[in-house]
């Protein structure tokens, strides 16, 4: 029985990137396919969440359905939502740019790049 001392990610034998196990002298022992967690369906780890923060926004007299799609951890999303509520930030009323997809940390860093000061108002919207 060969004792495995090292396991690493390598490009091996025309099979692409695989996990290779080697012994103490660096000799090949076995290989297994390399899988990145969540990569197949577009995820990046268990803690990454996608949250929609949506409603009807009003900028001066212009009323429109607006939406932020925040991605990030729970804490980052909470900070972004708190910022959007407290600073009354809504997406800018520019055609085709009222549905914004942004990471929560990026939004927290520079919120006025992704919105302007307006109001979230009570109105029936076409979204669950």
């Amino acid at each position: 029985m060969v004792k495995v001392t090292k396991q690493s990610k390598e490009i091996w034998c025309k099979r692409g990137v695989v996990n290779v196990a080697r012994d103490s002298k660096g000799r090949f022992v076995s290989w297994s396919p390399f899988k990145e967690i969540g990569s197949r369906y577009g995820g990046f780890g268990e803690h990454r969440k996608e949250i929609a923060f949506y409603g009807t926004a009003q900028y001066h007299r212009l009323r429109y359905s607006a939406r932020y799609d925040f991605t990030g951890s729970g804490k980052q999303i909470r900070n972004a939502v708190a910022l959007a509520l407290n600073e009354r930030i809504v997406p800018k009323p520019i055609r085709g740019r009222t549905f914004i997809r942004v990471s929560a940390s990026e939004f927290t860093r520079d919120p006025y790049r992704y919105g302007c000061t307006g109001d979230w108002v009570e109105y029936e919207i076409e979204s669950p």
Partner: protein
Amino acid sequence: MDAQAIGWNMKLSRHKKPKLCNPLLGFQDKQTVKIDCDGWPFKKVKYWAGRTMEWFKLGGYLIAKSSEKHYHIVFNRFVTWSKNLSIINWVAQQSKSRKLDGYCIMQAIKENSTLRISKKQGKPTPIIVFRYGKQDKGIKKYLQCREELKPTLEMIDNYAPLP
């Protein structure tokens, strides 16, 4: 405001002082199959959840009640976005539900399927009423998301917008 900048979904409000309210929070992703059943009785929801799960081998499902005769279904198995849309459209077509048709169209426009998890104008947060089958993938993700966003939901509920 430049007139050309006004899009199809924008309207000029008559009232200068609108009634303020808090925006909603929704769980969204591309790989979990989610269906919004508006105006369906519970028996019908359960029937379609079971039939869809069997037909597409989705492993398990969860039913959440968002308000009277309004339910959400979340399935367990992860699928690709094209398959996800195909499943939702299959249910809409087979059940002949107009509201579900509208839901499908909205999800296709946004390229993401969304289910509400916060309160909405008198409606409470969706309550889980029924579970069946495996709960280790999509359902786990949905429940985890709800659990981890509880502080955010409480914050939104307690927030009173300034006049």
